[in-house]
């Protein structure tokens, strides 16, 4: 028998899993980790579903952001941001913009990546980004600036486009 909570949860998953998958892909940079992140996020959301009041998506997304940073923290000994680009995709002679951006994003820390995704993909303001990540607004500002600068070095097309404040 399906309880009302379970039905709500399943309806939410059916409606939003695609959007969550996209965000997870941007956050992790690869399909495997994105899939893992989505499943973990949905599991934790289901476990705390009874505590959610109102619209669940903000809560679920916050679980995802925190989980992404936490996963990075757990693996930071083995994985760390580097100035070296990741391994070149094999037999891909015409590297397009997407791949260039993807590789540039990989040079950022998960926190910086999450910030850029929140700010420029989810379109959150600096204040809401800070709240979503549990950081101060000034930290979000400085980290975003640093992330954009780093991204600009690896992804020169960004530097050549007209600037606009978010």
């Amino acid at each position, binding site marked *: 028998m399906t309880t009302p909570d379970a039905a709500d*949860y*399943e309806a939410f*998953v*059916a409606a939003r*899993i*695609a959007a*969550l*998958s996209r*965000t*997870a*892909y*941007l956050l992790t940079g690869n399909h495997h980790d*994105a*899939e893992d992140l*989505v*499943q973990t996020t*949905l*599991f*934790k*959301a*289901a*476990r*705390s579903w*009874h*505590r*959610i009041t*109102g619209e669940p998506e*903000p*809560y679920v997304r*916050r*679980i995802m952001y*925190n989980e992404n940073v936490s996963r990075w923290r757990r693996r930071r000994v083995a994985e760390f941001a580097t100035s070296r680009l990741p391994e070149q995709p094999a037999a891909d002679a015409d590297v397009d*913009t*997407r791949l260039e*951006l*993807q590789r540039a*994003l990989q040079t950022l820390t998960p926190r910086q990546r999450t910030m*850029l*995704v929140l700010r*420029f*993909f989810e379109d*959150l303001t600096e*204040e*809401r980004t800070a*709240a*979503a990540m*549990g950081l101060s607004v000034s930290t979000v500002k400085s980290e975003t600036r640093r992330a*954009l600068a780093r*991204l*600009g070095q690896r*992804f020169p*097309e*960004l*530097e050549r*486009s*007209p*600037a*606009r*404040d*978010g």
Partner: protein
Amino acid sequence: MTELLRQSLSDLAEDATVATPRANTWADARRSHRRRLVGGIAASTAAVLAVVTGSIALVAPSMRQNSGVTDQPAYVIGDLALPTNVSQPSPWESGTADAGPPGPLAVLGETLDRRTSWFHTSDAYYGISAVDGSYRYLDLPHLALNGTAVLSPDGTHVAYWTQSKTSTEQTTVDGYAVYDTTSGKTATHTIADRDVVPRLLVWAPGSNELMAAYRVGPLDDREAQVGKTDVLDVATDQSTVVALRHDVQPGESASWSANGIAFWRAPKLTVIDPQTGGVLMDLGLTPTPVGGGKQPRSGGVAWSPDLSTLAFAALYPKSSGPLLQETSLGTFHAGGVGAQLQGRDRPLGPPIIRRVTPFAAVYHLLGWRDDTHALVLGVPTAAQAVRADVVPGIYSINVETGDYERLASVSLNDSAWIRGIATSVSDHPFVNRPGPTSHRDPRTVWAVIAMVVLLSATVLFVVLRSRRSKDPLRPIGTTPT
């Protein structure tokens, strides 16, 4: 730049593979939630139980509840002994109300330091077991006066004055009680007279009878008061009241036997006929040279076991300290066995008064060990008496030769002292017993627990506050507090 970034991110996101929802995520998650819930409750319960159990283990030794009354003595008389060291119990030592009767006592002591609460101390009697040397406070019901309880020579009974409240809520002495240290039972005896002025409680050498000496009459008219004795047969619980022709005065010591009641108030020794209350002998002793002409006070009087000799201690005040007193320990040979003292018409014969020194400081005459050895609490020589670090002791003094032997050391602080010892047991060898149990101060334990709880609460608060700022269930857009 950011516009291109937005566009690029959106394009990149289109490459994402949509995750496939797992069929059992909900069930697994709810199962996990239940497990965490049960685990949390179990952990909390275990933590609370651990704290409670630990607290009880640390605090409870003094709270162990035994029955207050027992019928079966669990000792062999031949095994009874006095300890070679006398001290005072921990302020937190258990009492007879909690731990039951202590069994035959070797020593009856008194202290000002018993903890009645976390913030208060009070006077209390304590006993040292003649069986195992353990210490225990005596919770004597209706106790009227401190400093008056007496231990029977065999250590099995403690007698004390009792009190009652009058209609005007004033506390008055109305009788005496006998606490049985082996059964825990207390027998109370009400004195029929009103306006009782308690004077002395004295045990017979055989521990079978108790004499209560008191005065009755108008409290504001001493001339109109009459001295009386109430002699209780402990075995039959019957008592006999006799009016005395002797003014029982404060500070007087007494030793009682069926052959004669000896009252000693230095320098006067009086023997009273216990049957009639009449005076058998009234002897004024010349102050001894050791006192330098000062008026001594009584340090106790005691009949020898064969009732032929009275030992008495005269304490002469010294300026060097409140407890150090020049002493004259004397003996009075009454001229034979006690039968010669009976009857007012019989001559007592020539008294032989012998001063037994060299004891410089006798704090108290405790009784007799045998027919020739008196037991005293004191310091043997003047040279030792003036040394602050000298530990007093219980000494056996041969009243014929003056030789003495130290039987026990007495390590009491200024707020404790010995009220009496079981003299009938003193002929057994003194035994080295473990000292008083050292009890933890429960206030320290609870303070530590409180600090741990406070610290834990602080850590928990900080952790929760830190986690709350990252709580996924806090809606996006709210500012962390």
